[in-house]
């Protein structure tokens, strides 16, 4: 089971892009095996600070270990998968 948390700022363009890309990626590569939590830094700045998030959109892969973070719109799917440590072939 993949657990993600996406830090966004309201419905800003890049955040929405990131959310859209993440959703698509999950559906394609890990259907029914993922959870996405969305966190709006404008609404919960303290939480973002605690999590050490300095930019939005930022994606954090919480599970499985190791934890990884990626900043950006997540439009480069292969790079994202690599960064997340998910080999397309393994999935």
């Amino acid at each position: 089971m993949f657990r993600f948390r996406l830090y966004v700022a309201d419905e800003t363009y890049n955040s929405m892009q990131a959310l859209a890309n993440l959703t698509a990626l999950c559906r394609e590569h890990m259907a029914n095996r993922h959870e996405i939590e969305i966190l709006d830094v404008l609404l919960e700045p303290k939480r973002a600070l605690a999590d050490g998030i300095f930019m939005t959109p930022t994606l954090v892969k919480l599970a499985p270990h190791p934890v990884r973070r990626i900043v950006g719109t997540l439009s480069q799917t292969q790079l994202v998968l690599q960064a997340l440590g998910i080999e397309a072939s393994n999935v």
Partner: protein
Amino acid sequence: MTLAESPSPVDAIDEIATLIEALHVSERRLEELTGGEVDTVADRTGRTFLLRRAQEQVRLSEAGKQAAILNALPAHIALLDPRGVILSVNQAWRRFGDTNALQSPDCAISMNYLEVCDLASGDYPAEARQVANGIRSVLRGDVKNFSLEYPCHSATEQRWFLMAVTPLPGNPPTGAVVMHVNVTAERQTEESLRVSESRFRQMAEHIQDVFFLCEADGSRMLYVSQAYEEIWLRRCESLYANPQSWSDAIHPDDRPAAQEKAMSGGKFKQEFRIVRPDGSIRWIESKGYPVHDDAGRIVRIAGIAKDITAHKLAQDRIAYLNRVYVMLSGINGLLVHVRSRDELYNDACRIAVEGGGFRMAWIASVDRKRMKIELVASVGLDATAMTALKARLSLSGGTPLGRSRAARAIAEKKAIVTNHLIGNPDVSLGHFYEERNIHSMIMLPLIVANEGVGTLALYAREDEFFREEELKLLTELAGDISFALEHIGKEEKIARLSRITAFTSEINSLIVRIRGRQELFDEVCRVAIEHGRFGTAWIGIFDSVTLAVTSATWTDGPTKRLVMTLDNEQTDVANGSGVVARALRTGRPVVENDLASDPLVKSVRRAEAVGAGLRSLIALPFVIEGLVVGHLSLYSTELDFFDGSEVRLLTELAANISFALDHIGKEEKIARLSRIRAFMSNINTLIVRADNRNELFEEACRVAVEHGKFGIAWIGALDHETLIVTPIAWAGDEAEALSKVKSSAREDLPAGKGAVGRAIHARHVVFNNGLHAGGYQGPRLTKALQLGYRSQITLPLFNGEAIFGTLSLYARESGFFNEDEIKLLVELAGDLSFALDRFDKKEKLDYLAYYDVLTGLSNRSLFLERVTQYMQSAVSGGHPLALFLIDLERFRNINDSLGRPAGDAMLKLVAAWLVRNAGDAKLVARLGADHFAAVMPVVQQEGDVARLLEKTVTAFLGHPFRLEDSVYRLALKIGVALFPDDGADADTLLRNAEAALKRAKARGERYLFYTQKMTDTLAGKLSLENQLRQALDNEEFVLHYQPKVNLASGKLVGAEALIRWNDPRTGLVPPGRFIPILEETGLIYEVGRWALRKAIADYLHWHAAGLPAPRIAVNMSPLQLRNRGFIDDIKQVIDIDTQAAAGLELEITESLIMEDVKHSITSLQSIRDMGICIAIDDFGTGFSSLSYLSKLPVDVLKIDRSFVVDMMTGPEGLALVSTIINLAHSLKIKVVAEGVETEEQSRLLRLLSCDEFQGFLFSKPVPRETFEARFLASTPAG
């Protein structure tokens, strides 16, 4: 920010400018670093900075979203500032400005909406001002919101708008939002609801149903609407006073159910009838609904009661019509297949009751002839109703059809309807209908060919059932039935005619075929029943002179009594008024179509016929040449059966039968006369030939039966003292039994009144052509009747003047003896009497004319007469006949040398021999001095003739005729002629036989056929046989001898004698060609005997000559061994000389012995006992024999040549031969090998210890002389 701490404005501005520059640069840099993919960044404290681009996006997106939402709303929305100026509007506002009176097209951004409203001058200025004031009060903060619904009708539709004003935040508010919503749809719904409610109210006020509300237990009526009074015709008050009084009015039939339902406590719906005070009946539909309290208990019943009478009536009409339709369609269905009137009537009534639901239905039919209306079918009528109806209908009969409704319907040819049977003064049997719950009825006329033929009556339970619609349909229905009746009538007519046609055509075909009168009568009656389906048929023979009618035949009638009546009842043709009597008297067909009706005719026969269910009768006379000779009477079970066409057809038929009778009569006359003639000619021959009275009488009876075709013939002798007639000769059916019956001639006894008695007393012929008609019936007549005899004649026989006795003849046909016949028979009786007279006077009849005095055989003329007779039966039997003319060879020599008396004696011997051989003296005749003739009446196969000839000639030749202690052997020559090939009459045949005989003499043949071809064919068949016989006679057979040699010594030890035929024409014939024929013809016995004798003779000859005669083996045929005389034959042969047995060996084939081992052993044993050796020939060809070998009395075993050949080809063959030899030796049997041809074979056989051999190696079979010279002479015996 505080001023104290602030730098100088210029510096500050510069610094600010620098900072801003730095901010821009850093932000740009950040954008570059994140590739523009980041929206926010946070500082170390967690403060989030929205990047400028993102900020812009967020802002734009917020405003865009809001604008989009507003624009998407259907309501017209505007934002006003506190002054009422329009700051912004949504798309709906813009779009629909022109449709809203309060929102003119110029009502756009920057306009003051308040002013617009204040200045409004359209259809609704008041509302506009109200709006402006409302907005103002909101803007002032006086009210939290304001709304107003207002109409705004366009030219095409009515519309309503709801305006709402909401303040923007602030105090006083910073503006207001104005919204107009189109609420037309809501307003319209409301409006329609209002209208419908008003209508409902109106309806409820005018409704004519009864509304009621009562306590649940019915104890109190809480409310009842006014309609109750109109429907029930009772006061509402009465109901309040007595809440159950509503049910008092209910029809008694419906009341219990209605009350029960109403009290059931639940929701109910029911229908019932009420009877109103004025007697009228209404149909009510009542519905009830329970009303519950809070606890769920039923406290009230609310309900509606409705008058549904009209509806009900309409329903009933439909139901009635439906019933009629059902009936109509049922009956129409029926019409398609119905074939008989009765079926139509019955089914129509049944359908009326079952399908049409009528209470009763019946059909009456008019018998116009008898002025009667008869009930023909009914359904649903009880016994009383039936009786009443029949009585009523019978009243209508005899009088002009006019009284009853049925009669009126028929007479007026229109339907008579009575719709109210009960309580109707015009209806006489009101109670009758009431009892049967019948309220209306209809009589429908049935009309065929525009004439009322009947009526269909229907009775309905319902009052006023038959109205216009029903009447129309039922009239149509009656029309359909009428049509069917007409159709059936035609069909019946056709069926009846076709029955009669079938009958007549069958009879016509019979007429062609049938040759006998009685058979014709029987068949006509049978066919009348079978094809014509008449109830009874009866044929009588009429004697137009005596006016007597004799029943010839009749079919089994429906009753036995009727049959008896037909048989016995006399018909008074002279005066009778009966049908048959009239027909016979007038010679014309007479019809009675209603046997039961005519009271004038009182006849037993008619009464029986009626009793047996017969209704119509036709009597058809048979008329030949103007004379009535009989009648055919046909009874039908149907009334009025014989109509014009039927009578015409049947009259034709009677004419045809008459024609046939005439024809049969003529044929019979011819046949009978020729029979009588044949009878007479035979009797005459008999008279000449018969030696004594008994022979004469017996033969006379036999001839009467055989040639005269009388079934029974007997002759009785009268004892003049006792007057008893005792049968002394008889022939025919049951003759033996009848011969025991004596007759009496005593006039004082009833028995003396019989035919015999009467004939004796009257001294005259007595005949009876209708034995079955009655009169004295003794046991003989009873028996004769049982046997089917119908005619009898008794002829007195005279001895000089005195009565000797009687001759009685019986015939099966009734009316057999007619004038011509009787004349001939009387003549014949006279001849018999003459012969009797002669016998009595002991005068030998001079029968020289017919017989050869010397031999007693027939002479030429008698022989020819007989041959003629045989020829007749040969023709009818379809077989040939052979006539032989026999010449006694060298008879003249005997006559000359021994003298005439010896010659005559010899002729008598020959005649006796011929008679014995022919088996019957009648077949042989003496035609001349030494000429005899014989006839073979039946030749089954031509071969038979030749065989007979051979047999006869041979037997004759072999027969020793002993005359004066001497034995003479005579020979015959025969000429043969065959009938029909060689001559059509006896004379020609005899002449041709003479010719054949002459030729045979000339050629020296023993016999010859007249036709050369026949001789050739038969000769061909018999030639080999003949040649073999001749070979035997001419000593053409010879014996050849094959030597047998001892294998060890090489010396001759024996010889096998083999028969050869030395045919002078062809030379030596191989044994295979003639031995089988010898066996087939039995010549083998003679030839076998000859061979035996010859072999012994040769042996004895050699022995006598001092030669070393070897034992001679002679082959025995299987036939010989089986022949009982064989042993004797051998004995005879060896008895010639004591040496003979020693010189003889018999060779018998193995297979022959095996055929009957037991007999073989006995025979062989007895032969062996004579000292004769026995050899088994062809040993090995029957394998089973080895085991029997020990039991057989044999001396020698001859191994078949095939084993000798096989012996050389393989070890098995060798082993077999070796085994045979060893086995034989162990049984002390000598072994001879046959067919040895090579040295090798002989060497091998020697090695196997075989004793002897024969074969080409040593010598083939050779003639006696050669054998003698070659093998005997060189080695003298010693």
